[in-house]
């Protein structure tokens, strides 16, 4: 994916920047941060300092939320880091088109058909569940202009 024209699907964040600044020391494990220009989830965070009487530095290890690649960075704790806006939304899967696009319905009934079936294991699982007639929820992850189905969840009678 990647060649999708965002402009059709702008929501409330039009014009807003893809990231916002946050002081390094206020970041948290499991939160998000931009590392080497990529939106990442922080999986490890530790502090160190230069010399005994020096100031704190934060060592961050993050995993690219789209590609799963690992990135690291070290930064003085007083500096600001960019934090990506990350939106994760659940959609009901209504159909899969012949050319591999998903028909997704949001909570408020809006339909979209611009996302492809994800590649790899997840895509196989999704198709299998769909073919088995299961009720499927897709989690769509969106950040920094990229958008992708990151998880699927089959609904059981218990759920909403």
């Amino acid at each position, binding site marked *: 994916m990647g060649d999708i024209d965002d402009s059709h699907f702008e929501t409330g*964040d039009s014009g807003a920047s893809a990231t*916002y600044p*946050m*002081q*390094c*020391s*206020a970041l*948290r*494990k*499991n*939160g998000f941060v931009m590392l080497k220009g990529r939106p990442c*989830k922080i*999986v490890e965070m*530790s*502090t*160190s*300092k*230069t*010399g*005994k*009487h*020096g*100031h*704190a530095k934060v060592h961050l290890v993050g*995993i690219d*939320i789209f590609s*799963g690649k690992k990135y690291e960075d070290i930064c003085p*704790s*007083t500096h600001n880091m960019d*934090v990506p*806006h*990350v*939106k*994760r*939304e*659940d959609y009901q899967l209504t159909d899969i088109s012949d050319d591999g696009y998903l028909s997704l319905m949001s*909570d408020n009934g809006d339909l979209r058909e611009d996302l492809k079936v*994800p590649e*790899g*294991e*997840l895509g196989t*699982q999704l198709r299998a569940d769909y073919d088995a007639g299961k009720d499927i929820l897709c*989690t769509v992850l969106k950040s920094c202009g990229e958008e992708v189905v*990151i*998880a*699927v*969840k*089959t*609904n*059981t009678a*218990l*759920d*909403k």
Partner: protein
Amino acid sequence: MTDQIIAELESAANIIMAPPNVVTNEQRHTAESIFLDFRKTKSPYNICREILEKSGNPYVMFEAAEVMKNAIIREWGFLLDSDKVSLRQYLFEYVITHETPPYVRERILQVIAIMVKRSSIDDNGRERGNLLREVENLIVNSEPQKKILGCNIIIHLMQEYATTVKSTDVGLSWEVHFKAKKQFQATDLKRIFQFTIYLLTEVGKSDMPFADNMVELVGHLLKILEMVLTWGYVSPLLPKKLIGIYEAVYEADVAPALKLPESWAEYVFNPDLLPLMFQIYWKVRDNDQLSHPALACLVQLASLSGRVMLEDEPRMRYLHSYLKAFFNLVSNVTIKSRESVGIANIVKKLIIFFSQDILKLTKHIKDTLLDEFTRLTCHFCEGAALEEAQEEDRNFSDAFDGMLEAWTSILQEFGPATVDNNLSDCAKRVFEKYVQCRLAPPDGCRRPQPDVEKGEETDDSDKELYKDQLQAIGLFGRAIAGSSVPLLFNLLESRTSTLFNSFQEIRNRTLSIGEASGLDTLYEDIHWILLIAGQVLCFDREGNETMMIPSEIIRYSIDCCSRGQCTVEASLQALQLAENNSIMPADFEKCDHIIRLFFDVMKLCYVEDYVISSGMKQFLSPELGSTIMWFLNRFCVNYLTPIESYYTEMSPTILGCLGVDTEGAQLVIRYVLKKIQSNVYYFQSETQLLQETIDCFCHIVSNKHKSIHIVNTTSLRQLVVLCESLEPGTMPQNGFRGMYRGFSLCGACLSAEPERMRSYFVGIMGSLQTRFEAVCTIQGGLASKAEDQRTLVVIVDLLEAFIGLAKGALMPTATLLFEFLAPILNEMHAFMSAFNNYHVIVQLILELFGQVAKYMLCYLSPMDSKRLYESALATVQTYAKCNMNRFTTESFAEDTSFQDLVLVLELLTFIISKDCFDLCVTSNDEEITVTASDVSLFGLSFILPLMSMDLLKYPSLCMQYYRLLVLVNDIYPEKICGLPQDLLQNLLKSIEFGLTEFGSDIVQICLDFLLGMASYVYRHKLVNTPLYAGLRPFLKILIDLTLTHQINSDLMSTASASIYALICCYQEDYRALVESLLQMQSDPMTRERLAAAFNNLVLNVEMNCERVPKLRFRDNFDKFIANVHGFLLIK
């Protein structure tokens, strides 16, 4: 025939030893199976003898010895006495007359030792006596190599007897091992000792340097002697577990004391013994190989105690003799790094075992002793300083710590130092040497530290790293408060003013590199002065005990006051001037010395303020900032508003300046809260400093005698306002949590005034509630704001604050706080649903419930508890719903679910604790029937489907899960019994898994679980229930695990209890199981022995699940396992 076997074995050995490229895998396997078959040979003694005689292949010879060893263990009971003797004699002759590779020889020696031990059980050690006589002859009369062989035989013999609990020689039960050891130590151990001393006397006469074979012989002799002196002398009074601990000691540093019975008197009181041992040590101390065991012997001799030492006269003579030789050594040589730890150990042991006797010595000897100890301590202290700078071995550092440990007793038992000039002089020398080693030149001798990147997360701050050292130095400082306190404030004042001057100079210009490192040197100095001062003025806090001002300090302050040296007025004036940063007070010299140290720290804080306001914050040291907060914390906790009635005497100056309702106390509170405020504002980015600041705040307010003077102050209000006004998302993790915990703790002091308490908490909670409501009423529902970062950080901050409030809840405040928190908790399932994709929030919500359950639930009424259960279950259920059947590509997903589940399990565990620990004071009128364990199990049923076996491999999750199971099991076995079928299946599956997949702590839990369940099933006769069927397979599982050595021997007694309970439930199954095990044995003799063993196992044991038969079964089982492991080869 035998030649053919030998040839076959030799060629197989060649294949096994061949490099991988020469032989095929198949060949190797065939060769291995030849040896495996060989190991199963019955009565292999003749063939093994042939091998030893004829084969030159060391591998085959080694195998032969090994096969013999196992056969002897297995077949001992069937061997003829004459065969045993001739075999033992043959092997003894063999090692003397044949040159064999060391590993073959060692194994043969072990076989001899095992045989000797085995026969000594029947013949009271007669055979052993014969052997020792032969060995002694060998050592005295033969050439050097034979002498060493003789020593090796003795060493092997001792090793065989030394351990009873973890003995390699299976086939004997522990009791028999124990008896054998007792017999050996009562007879031949002394003989070995005496013989060794005799040989060492000869060594003492010879000149250095020794020839090579002499060095080897002396090494062996010292090793034997060290073994005798560190021998775990068993006493029948000790339980088996403790004996096991004693026997597990291999390092002489931590060896148990040399505790001997009266019968040793003639050996250890030999007047030549100690001079000889010191003489030997002196001779060998330059030899790495020999000095260690020789010194270890001296250390052990310094710990001589037990019944042999009951009589005063010989004991004093022994001590005299020891000290004389010891002084002679240490005053004539310079102690080297390598030997320093041993020397310190000697001092430590002397003080532990002889302190009362030392007090009875003449003044002259006592003074010499103190003087030598002081000299050694200072020497080690200097060495330690050098080691720290060079990051080398820590010999001197360890030795110094050891000396300090000894001094701790000396100062307490010889004291008070004030009446003994020599003692106080020594204390002063050590204290000053320590301070000197911590300061930079010219006053001190600290060398620049290697500049390494330091991680903060580990506990490697100086106050943790040097905690014991600093505590001991604090003790020295208090013993000589009259000189230590002035030394400290003078140093602190001079460093602070240098620091201030430096900053005034460098203001408005850039810093040169030299100046920057100069600042670091100053920071390091001040850091250490504060650490030492903090330890001199205050004891370390252990848990929640009430902190007291040390009596020596009070005494010192009183003395200064009564001499007219210090006055309350001058002290108070100093504090007032420091608060306003005014010039030095006129009467400053009359300020109380304790107050003066505090004044100096206020001055230091002023320098920090000055630097911040001049825009030079980046030059301050966060490390020093933390140390300042650490000092303020200690000072306030101990000295602020002291309770007079706790003390037998109290200083009027301390009371006048810091007592309840004094102007000084208010001033200090104001000052410290302002400092906290300033740190929270300026140093959020320094996590360590922030944490130290929060700790300081929480410690002070957690004491209600102090918080009552804080709770309604403007300063506290300002602190609350600061927390409310910080930009959302700027505070690091745990920041708000800590501050709000403090606010919550502080409110507890108003327990006598409910209205004031309510209004206090309204003041704290009001703004949080408003912000929370604002988030809840967001237009379009919570979910619409999920991507709005500002909302997210506001929610994170709020949750942190709520968690803090819960953590600070105490008995008087819990109900009120819950009233505030309940509506919030009630909304959490909606938050969980809306933000289920944001793990930071998901985890904070779970944590909030966990903390509320941990800190508040035990105080809550049944009604409130029910409200909490409902909100918690709704939230957990929502969590489960959001994560059930979820399939994701995210690589961190497993890690995140692990963290989530740990939190959920913690929550459920905290909830269930309500059933064991309930402090709710209200009556039980309310009709609430829900118990906490119902809630926990219900919650568990939601998340069990999410817990995959992969996730259980995370140790902490695993532990938490099994702990919860065992807790439910302990309190309410009937709840487990009533679980739905699939949940029960899952539970039992995980118990089965736990028996083999994880560590022994989990095995223990699983065994306990089975014991509890089986006993419950038996007592309630629950035949035909799902639980009955579910537990059934475990009988076979457990018996298989124990027979195949898969259960750790430490857990054997727990396992036996579980097996017993299971046998009670399934007696038919047990009989069938035994039958099938017997059928599996092809060898009739083995089958017969196994049948007999099974028979004895349940002999006279009633199968009724009662305590007495259970204990009898346990003892039987112990013997059963020892017996069966000896002959049953189950792989």
